[in-house]
């Protein structure tokens, strides 16, 4: 086993909530996402169809939790896994799981925060690697209700 790359500085980040990101769930965003996937259910496209099924508005398709608000002066989007100071040059997205607490619909504004929950060091066919596990919590901005959580991991090697 090679020496651990998980420094005190990295370990100190465990369980610490990162900055807030604001996501807008718009009708157009829902339709674009649903269309890109190939969904055929009108609940993702048409307000009347969604309301007929008991939703407040167009339903956000599975995996869509809004589009982060972009401003031109913001730093470029941080590529997944590049937020931590890890001494490996390459990163792969290892996987993603979404958990829904409440339906997410067009018109919702969602605030997310991500924290690192675990580091795992392994040696595999691609050599030594660090797997970083993260949890993101999504809250509706108007009332702070948790609507969803995302669990993801990145593989650094």
């Amino acid at each position, binding site marked *: 086993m090679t020496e651990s790359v998980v420094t005190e500085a990295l370990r100190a980040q465990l369980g610490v909530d990162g900055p807030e990101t604001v996501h807008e769930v718009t009708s157009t965003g829902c339709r674009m*996402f649903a269309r890109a996937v190939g969904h055929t259910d009108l609940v993702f496209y048409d307000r009347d169809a969604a309301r007929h099924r008991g939703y407040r508005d167009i339903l956000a398709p*599975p995996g869509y939790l809004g589009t982060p608000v972009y401003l031109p002066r913001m730093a470029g989007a941080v590529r997944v896994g590049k937020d931590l100071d890890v001494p490996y040059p390459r990163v792969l997205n*290892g996987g*993603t799981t979404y*958990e*829904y607490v409440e339906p997410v619909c067009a018109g919702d504004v969602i605030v997310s925060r991500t924290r690192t929950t675990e580091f795992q060091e392994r040696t595999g066919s691609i050599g030594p690697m660090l797997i970083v596990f993260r949890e993101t919590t999504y809250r509706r901005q108007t009332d702070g209700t948790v609507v969803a959580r995302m669990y993801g991991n990145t593989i650094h090697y």
Partner: protein
Amino acid sequence: MAGQVYYEDIQVGDPIPVLRKNCSTLQLVAWAGASGDFYQIHYDVEFARRTGLSNIIVHGALKNAFLGQLLHDWVSPEGRIEKFGCQYRGMDYPDQDIMCSGVITRKYVEGDRHLVELDVWTENPSGQKTSPGTARVSLPSRG
């Protein structure tokens, strides 16, 4: 979409209807725009080759979203997806079939929710599970 599936109608071990997907490069560009993932390995062949890939590859998150479609179409209109996700284990390429499948692993009642857990995955033309995952859905009950 077939008719509504009810909790009482399904058993552990049952497969759910397979969803066949096949991405054009157009679909990958549409996904890049919709998801905000503009990494060039998903639409720029030269860029992808410079990173050592043989071709552009399908976004892992798009395959995950296909599993979301698989589950949504199965539980609709009355059921709900509560949790779903996968690991990105292998690559898929445009213009190749991506077969999305699921098998029921558990069913149970919790409070007034009728819950079903599944193994879900995408499979490439060689039969490899490129995105194995799990899911939990709630179904309506005939009760």
